[in-house]
């Protein structure tokens, strides 16, 4: 049977199956008729699996594209919206990521791009029934939010993470016009907070809200409107309020929504006690479904015990806004035996981390953030001994983000021996170029131990004084590594060459302030098409080197960001990514695509 014929039938067919069109026989390549294949494929949700499915044969490619409901685009410039809507006709949910990750640390100039509007205008025509939009590091304007609110009548879920360019006016449009809104999740954005009245724009008829997260907004909202909203949305399971909500108000909200699974509190202290905290403790006890607690701003040993009744079933505790001391954390963790994920500030110290090791045997993820990242003298924080203490008590630990001022090779080797299952190892020794403070040697052996001992390592961030040896280890042993972050490390081109020559699964590589030059860049020529992106800033790249790369690899976008201070021949910031959309048409003047 002619493959083309079958493909036409698949394209013409709508959702219902016409028995006359179904072929009793099929090609030897594809024994399943479509009406079997598509329902089976619709159970596959992982975009990586779907990608694999689509490569099997043309029938499967077609069946997959018709059954896909969610599309994930890791780099908004790797493909154009037209190509996406052309391939996938029935999308209900879109995830889009924009700027390179180092934009979080102010390394990407403003107006770089990643504007969501061009996407929205295409999506509005192709997917008028779009339900979900999740954006990360995109530029989102109020106009875009208004467009979104007005053009997608079935719209249900909006998630904005690390986006910028909008204000609370945009949120007003969403609240006012999205009649079926189930999720509004606003996190860590560069948002212009003009006031809290957006919350009052939710109509009285809206009862479908399941997720509401406005923790990162600063302005006060109308509490009575919030209380009414929470009361009428019986399916609300995630509520994360902002700092302006006080304990009394939180109490009232919890009484209205005891079914919550995730709670972000407001300010968790009071200046003057007008009602004993025993009430609040009992209220927490009545929230039987709580799995996550976050917020807890300014809390201390007077108020923290209020959450103890809810702690036994908690799986995720985010204390990264609460400057707890070691004993306060210890007293809390005694009650948290089911904890899988914990985020803390380094104010808890090594003793706090010992408590983690003692009381949280099921812990899988630990993130320790610096309370005072720019303080140079009198720094307390955590050290290698806290790290080791956690690893001893938490054998299931597989995700760590650890900010510290000192570390030793031996400690890291011990940690990975205790926890060989690491998938994500992100160690940030905050003092630049800091060696092992005991032996004064580079930290090469630490990361060598990590990559040798942890076969499942997917993500690695290195720091401290590092020579090319670190990268030799990484290239040789990190077979599953997908994401690597490097800053102020390495001795020569060899470092980068080692990584590009090894690490078969590398997808994202971000490098800043390393002595890697053109020869190293060009050694990875064939690798970049198998990667999502490469970022190199303040290294030794020149315009000529980048031009050679651009010429050899036409399916890569090689973008150089010029800034006024650097010399003309230097390529100060380089962002390289594979794309099927060609060079950017919206590049600002300081971005040169070679």
């Amino acid at each position: 049977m002619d493959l083309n014929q079958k493909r036409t039938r698949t394209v013409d067919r709508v959702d219902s199956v016409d028995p006359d069109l179904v072929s009793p026989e099929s090609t030897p390549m594809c024994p399943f008729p479509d009406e079997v294949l598509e329902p089976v494929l619709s159970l596959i949700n992982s975009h990586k699996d779907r990608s694999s499915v689509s490569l099997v044969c043309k029938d499967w490619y077609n069946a997959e594209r018709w059954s896909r409901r969610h599309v994930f685009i890791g780099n908004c410039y790797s493909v154009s919206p037209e190509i996406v809507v052309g391939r996938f006709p029935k999308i209900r949910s879109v995830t889009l990521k924009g700027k390179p990750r180092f934009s979080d640390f102010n390394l990407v100039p403003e107006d770089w791009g990643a504007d969501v509007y061009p996407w929205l205008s295409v999506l509005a025509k192709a997917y008028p029934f779009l339900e979900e939009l999740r954006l990360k590091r995109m530029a989102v304007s109020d106009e875009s939010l208004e467009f979104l609110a007005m053009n997608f009548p079935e719209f249900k879920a909006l998630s904005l993470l690390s986006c910028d360019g909008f204000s609370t006016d945009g949120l007003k449009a969403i609240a006012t016009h999205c009649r079926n809104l189930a999720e509004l999740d606003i996190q860590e954005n560069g948002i212009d907070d003009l006031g809290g009245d957006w919350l009052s724009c939710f109509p009285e008829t809206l009862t479908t809200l399941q997720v509401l997260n406005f923790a990162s907004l600063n302005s006060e909202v109308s509490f009575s409107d919030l209380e009414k909203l929470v009361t009428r949305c019986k399916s609300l399971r995630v509520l994360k309020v902002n700092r302006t909500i006080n304990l009394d108000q939180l109490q009232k909200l919890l009484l209205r929504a005891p079914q919550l699974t995730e709670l972000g509190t407001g300010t968790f202290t009071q200046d003057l006690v007008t009602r004993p905290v025993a009430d609040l403790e009992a209220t927490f006890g009545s929230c039987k479904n709580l799995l996550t607690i976050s917020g807890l701003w300014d809390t201390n040993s007077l108020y923290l015990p209020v959450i103890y009744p809810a702690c036994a079933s908690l799986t995720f505790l985010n204390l990264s806004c609460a400057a707890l001391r070691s004993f306060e954390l210890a007293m809390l963790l005694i009650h948290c035996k089911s904890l899988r994920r914990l985020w803390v500030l380094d104010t808890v110290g090594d003793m706090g981390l010992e408590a983690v090791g003692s009381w949280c045997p099921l812990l899988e993820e630990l993130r320790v953030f610096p309370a005072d990242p720019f303080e140079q003298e009198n720094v307390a924080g955590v050290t290698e001994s806290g790290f080791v203490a956690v690893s001893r008590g938490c054998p299931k630990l597989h995700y760590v983000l650890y900010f510290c001022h000192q570390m030793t090779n031996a400690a890291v080797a011990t940690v990975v021996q205790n926890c060989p299952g690491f998938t994500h190892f992100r160690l940030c020794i905050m003092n630049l170029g800091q060696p092992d403070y005991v032996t004064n040697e580079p930290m090469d052996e630490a990361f060598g131990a990590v990559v040798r001992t942890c076969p499942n390592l997917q993500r690695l961030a290195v720091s401290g004084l590092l020579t090319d040896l670190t990268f030799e280890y990484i290239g040789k042993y990190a077979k599953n590594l997908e994401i690597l972050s490097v800053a102020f490390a390495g001795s020569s081109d060899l470092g980068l060459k080692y990584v590009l020559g090894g690490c078969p699964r590398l997808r994202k590589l971000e490098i800043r302030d390393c002595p890697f030059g053109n020869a190293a860049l060009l050694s990875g020529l064939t690798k970049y098409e198998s990667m999502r992106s490469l970022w190199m800033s303040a290294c030794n790249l020149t315009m000529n080197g980048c031009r050679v790369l651009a010429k050899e690899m036409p399916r890569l976008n090689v973008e150089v960001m010029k800034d006024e201070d650097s010399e003309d021949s230097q390529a100060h910031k380089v962002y390289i990514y594979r794309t099927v959309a060609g060079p950017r048409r919206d590049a600002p003047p300081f971005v040169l695509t070679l």
Partner: protein
Amino acid sequence: MDQKKTTLDLFNNVDLATELRLGLPGTDNQPEIIKSSLSGNKRTSSEMGSSTCTDENESRFSPPTKEQVVGWPPVRSYRKNILQVKKTESEMGSGMYVKVSMDGAPYLRKLDLKMYQSYEELMKGLQVMFKCIIGLYFEREGYNGSQHVPTYEDKDGDWMLVGDVPWEMFISSCKRLRIMKSCEARGLGDC
């Protein structure tokens, strides 16, 4: 947004003489500059003291102070502001003694506001010190129903009712305290 100078820019104006020194730690704080083979590449070598850094071709960093490096440590900007309030408190120096007077008492007292974390604690401290009852604070009525009303003199010289503003704001503007008899305090708490 990219206004601050990066590590490389810091050393733009320094003489690029190629000179490696192995001195003892602490002998000289000058960062060394090594002229590398690529132009425009500015690196410094740190004084490793008695370490084995003798290879002239090896580039090392002299770690610049953190404030001068854009985007380091890699902490998101919203996280930097979390402890702003706490930091201000600790920067105010050790001890914040203010005079406390109580109407009718023969002499004044002094207390250290930094010993307290909240109004509640301060009230308890005052009640113990002066053996009086101050009672609860209500936003609208002030300290209605109690015989004594705590007031303070702020930076502008005005006498204010204790409890209206957040604690941190209070201790940064409070210059002295006065516990008034409630009959004299009429008018202070009324809106």
